[in-house]
């Protein structure tokens, strides 16, 4: 029973050993291949291989035109003949190839390919960057030969420009005249203010004081006008006051100038009498100091002032008819004081 159980286990472990051994042999064989030739037996090129299959594939460039200006496009077509799988061939990306750095490569869409087509055509637009470009660069083209034995010979290569170069004449880019466009705008826009005024002061904006001045200006002007008008056209009271003040002024002036007169005392007396007659309705008969004082009292002049006025005339009479040591100056001062006191009554 135990033998029956252990038999399959032994068999499976033997099978496992054989399998491992076989794998080791295979790996060893494969490794020897790599070390011997440097590459695997099923080598497939990493570059310039575009999945084309065939026994004798040929590639060539078709370039139109042969002369071009710098920066202008050339119509370049890669023609592949002899391929057995036209629909599977990958279009070479020339923009990624270093040899084509001297061109600006523009991809152009191609026509749909037919599986039975004898040739495949890939179109490009190449614009040379400088006049140093003399031809379309050679393109190396690996393909797969399905009848070749496995190994490097399974992927032969061909190239364009094999028999003939594809010469190019690249000319300097023609100088394009820049279109000159006039700046169109309303004529007023072309006028600019000049001079210091451009950075002058800002527009005047009245502040609070300016508004206050405007408010006060009207009433002040009106009041001034009113005062001037009242001065030009005074009323009766004012007229009387002006008249009175005029008489007093005249009398005072005369008293002050009396010392220049031949008879200063008489001049003072006359000045005071003239003032009294202009200011008070004295009787014509009142000529003596007592009569004048009496008339003034009757006209409601205070007795003291009336007597002071009478004294002025008495002193004048004394000075004229009985000259004493009194000089004209004290006399004039007394007369002026009397006039001033009378004027203050008005």
């Amino acid at each position, binding site marked *: 029973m135990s033998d029956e159980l252990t038999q399959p286990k032994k068999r499976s472990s033997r099978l496992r050993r054989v399998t491992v051994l076989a794998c080791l042999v295979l790996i060893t064989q494969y490794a020897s291949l790599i070390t011997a030739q440097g590459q695997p037996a099923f080598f497939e090129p990493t570059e310039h291989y575009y999945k084309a299959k065939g026994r004798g594939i040929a590639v060539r460039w078709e370039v139109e035109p042969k002369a071009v200006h710098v920066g202008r496009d050339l119509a370049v077509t890669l023609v592949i003949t002899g391929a057995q799988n036209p629909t599977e061939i990958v279009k070479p990306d020339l923009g990624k190839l270093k040899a084509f750095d001297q061109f600006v490569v523009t991809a152009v869409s191609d026509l749909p390919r037919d599986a039975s087509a004898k040739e495949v055509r890939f179109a490009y637009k190449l614009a040379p960057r400088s006049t140093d470009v003399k031809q379309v660069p050679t393109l190396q083209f690996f393909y797969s030969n399905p009848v070749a034995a496995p190994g490097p010979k399974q992927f032969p290569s061909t190239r364009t420009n094999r028999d003939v170069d594809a010469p190019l004449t690249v000319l300097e880019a023609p100088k394009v005249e820049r279109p000159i466009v006039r700046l169109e705008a309303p004529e007023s*826009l072309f006028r600019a203010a*000049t001079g210091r005024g451009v950075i002058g002061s800002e527009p005047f904006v009245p502040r609070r004081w300016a508004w206050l001045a405007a408010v006060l200006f*009207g009433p002040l002007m009106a009041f001034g006008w009113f005062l001037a008008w009242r001065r030009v056209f005074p009323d009766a009271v004012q007229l009387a006051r002006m008249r009175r003040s005029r008489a007093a002024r005249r009398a005072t002036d005369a008293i002050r100038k009396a010392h220049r007169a031949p008879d200063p005392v008489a001049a003072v007396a006359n000045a005071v009498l003239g003032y009294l007659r202009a200011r008070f309705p004295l009787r014509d008969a009142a000529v003596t100091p007592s009569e004048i004082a009496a008339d003034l009292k009757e006209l409601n002049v205070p007795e003291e002032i009336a007597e002071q006025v009478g004294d002025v005339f008495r002193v004048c009479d004394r000075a004229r008819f009985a000259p004493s040591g009194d000089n004209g100056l004290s006399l004039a001062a007394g007369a002026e004081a009397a006039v001033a006191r009378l004027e203050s009554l008005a």
Partner: protein
Amino acid sequence: MNGLARLAFSVVAFFCSAAPAFGSSPEDILAFAERAFAEGVALRDDSEIAKPAFARAAVHYDELWERGYHTPDLVLNRSRAHRLAGDLPRGIAAIHDGLAVARFSRPLQVELDDARARVLYPIEGELTTQGRPRQVRTVGTRMSPADAWVVSGFVWLLACAGVVRFAMTRNALWLVFVAFWVIALGSLGALWLQDARQRERDESLPLLIVTADVTLRKGNATEYPARIEPALPKGAEVRGLSRRGGWVQVQLPGGMIGWIPEAAIIPCGP
């Protein structure tokens, strides 16, 4: 050697044209601006050469404005230089800057109307209705504060003179005269008050100028649909409401609200 000489000339020319804006006197900057503007005018037959000259002039005028020279003449020069340099939005913004200082200036109003007419709104449609700014003509746009000061002072003077005439003549007609001028003064004051309130309401939101054709959207991302078609033209005037994530919520003059990228606007005005 020839190349070196050309390089040296370029460096000198660059500093001659650009340096004045930095640290020079206002007179120097003004002189450079005027020279650049005159150069642009002289070269106007070739717009490709003339525009950079006007752009240089605009930079110098901007510098003067930044330094606080806020005169209507400078505003006009600044706006014209920007417009001739091909930058209509900045031209409009310059006029609004000026109107914030002198909104009564008639030349500035005319210039703004002209600039607004160059903004490429559709001939008709909702965008035109919503987007075109409305002309506001109030007492504040027709009369400067200085004019108002002179006029109101004169009217007040007439009223006071009427009172004096009445005192002189005792003729009641003079009281009617006084009443007329007092009413006129009151009306002028009321108009100014109303204008000040209206202005306060209108200008409570910042004014923004659209610098590139941009779609007004319903939200602050390009995934949101357009609020209105077609796109707002450059030079359109909008009021800013709020900002979020590089977008600004704006209101068109017609009242429509939407979002535009922050990079597509410049601020201006008060």
